């Protein structure tokens, strides 16, 4: 259709042109929305990935620190064992002092109760006892210790075990 300078669009033509513009805008909006979804999805995945990596780094870091300090602690625990064997006030006080230093850094002596817990105790000796129905701890051979919840040395215990017929 040829138009001169002063021609105006008819209503129909205008509507048609406006419709095309709208469709174009809508299409572009649609594309932008799709791109946004993709970016959002990527962002969420990256966040999740970062979280996982952060957890892994934390675990590796903890593992590395434990691996570094564990040999030192096991040596020190052997010194504590010897101090425990000496029944005098000086030895006891040195034991308590060293233990306190370690305790402030996350080392705990394992609390031994009657029920046998293989996660924390190591049964090094056993006696048969026909009067019991389940394994019971009756004595401690060597104390056990944990560092931030991880076992450095399990408590070495003596157990009574039921007699099976």
């Amino acid at each position: 259709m040829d138009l001169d300078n002063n021609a105006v669009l008819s209503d129909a033509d205008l509507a048609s042109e406006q419709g095309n513009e709208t469709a174009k805008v809508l299409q572009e909006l649609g594309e932008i929305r799709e791109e946004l979804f993709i970016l959002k999805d990527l962002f969420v995945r990256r966040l999740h990935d970062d979280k996982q990596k952060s957890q892994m780094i934390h675990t590796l870091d903890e593992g590395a620190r434990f691996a570094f300090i564990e040999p030192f602690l096991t040596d020190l625990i052997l010194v504590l064992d010897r101090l425990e064997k000496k029944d005098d006030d000086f030895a006891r006080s040195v034991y308590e002092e060293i233990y306190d230093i370690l305790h402030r850094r996350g080392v705990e002596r394992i609390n031994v109760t009657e029920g046998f817990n293989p996660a924390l105790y190591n049964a090094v000796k056993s006696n048969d006892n026909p009067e019991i129905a389940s394994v019971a701890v009756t004595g401690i051979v060597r104390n056990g210790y944990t560092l931030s919840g991880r076992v450095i040395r399990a408590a070495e215990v003596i157990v009574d075990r039921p007699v099976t017929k």
Partner: protein
Amino acid sequence: MAEKIFGIDLGTTNSAIAVFENDEARILKNIDGDEITPSVVFFTGVDSDGNDESLVGIQAKNSAATAPDNIVQFVKRLMGNQGDAYNFKAPSGKEYTPEMISALILRKVCKDAEQYVGDGSVKNVVITVPAYFDDARRIATKQAGKIAGLNVLRVINEPTAAAIAFGLDTNESGKVLVYDLGGGTFDVTIMDINGGNFDVIATGGDSQLGGINFDQKIISIILRQLQEQGCTVDDEDDALMADIREKAEKTKLQLSNVETARPVFTINGSTYRIEITRETFEKESETLMQRTQLLLEDVLNEKNLGWSDINHLLVVGGSTRMPMVKKLLERISGKEVTYKVDPDTAVAQGAAIFASTLTTDSPDADAGMINLDVTAGERSGVTASLVISDVTSQSLGVITVDPNDHSRKINTVIIPHNTKIPTKKSEVVYTVYDNQTEIKVEVTEGNDADVEYVRVIGSSILSMPPYPKDSPVEIIYAYDPDQTIYIEVIDKVTNSSLGTFEIDRASNLSDEEVKNAMGVVKHATVD
């Protein structure tokens, strides 16, 4: 996305699992935070459905004394054996074969690894075995994996796995001797490594020689010095014995770094100071080191190799950290010993590297020679093929009759041990009598000519036409990478086949038994 394949070192005393990702082989720790899991199973009881409940690993070890009848250790030594004598009866009354016990260990190791890689994702594995493991034991290991619900793509030699870690890390080539001195066993392997190709040439070992033997030497020195200082050691004193054992092991480790160690003991209120020099320890351990030297030389001599033929010396196993090992090897080989691979985890890492070259849907995944492209990591920037061939760990032969004395039987080797596999070899034998109509083929495992010292692993009787005596018959053995033996007998008069058979693997579980075992192990809880 391709499924991950994991490498497992299923050890006699400890096991480990690793995966190759981000260009490195990473050991996956267990739930206790340790890289190794003791290969120990303890049956704690029975659940309300009658299924066994068990502990595996350090907690199983800790529980051993509470019920010694319920603990199973060192099961690897029993793999490949069948019969009641080798089975373990659990509290439920169910019988567990060595394969089933190993399956429980594998389940634990894989389950713990899933805390890092996702539940249910440890399915496809490569498992390592000692180089001297025979046909029955390798198949038993594979069956253990299957019973554990795993897809075992390959079973490879431990020294091979360690050498893979060495080869990929450094891209070196030449003849490599792998000296593996672990906690309880000693292995020697000679391999050819060349740009990703791995060829095992020879193997040897001693299953009763390892780090614990050296610990015992230190204990002897400690006890001797305590006695010299007037101390009477009560070996019923559990605390003292535990103290001596622990300090002996620490002393051994210390002497790898310092010349003198000074463990101290307090016994009955008195203090005893022990002094052990590295020189004293090495002198006490001389016989142990000589044992390893003799085994090394045997393996070299068998292949007419000398130290000048060996390009690289690889030491594996924690016990190789002792300076006396480095000293011995450098003295007898004239080569420098370097610690390029972490000796404690090399096997699992190498298995993981090898596993990364496989795909679960590759038709060649179970083939004898695997030619797969693998990118050897950003460090090298080279695409290499990983080709592994293996050797027979035992000679295979047939029982024949002494031609000069028909009452005497002799073992005739057809495939010598340390032959590269897959392989096909044959031996022509002759009929003994006129009109002989049957030939009995008894397949043996072992090097000796005396039948008393070899093991018959399978036999078959085949019919043949009645020929005059001294008629030739060819016995052909074909041996594949999983060490399955195929036998064919050829009538050389007519050049026709008299028949074929596979080895009747009486020392392995049948398919039915494996299926039943899977059911039992599946329902057993493992903590």
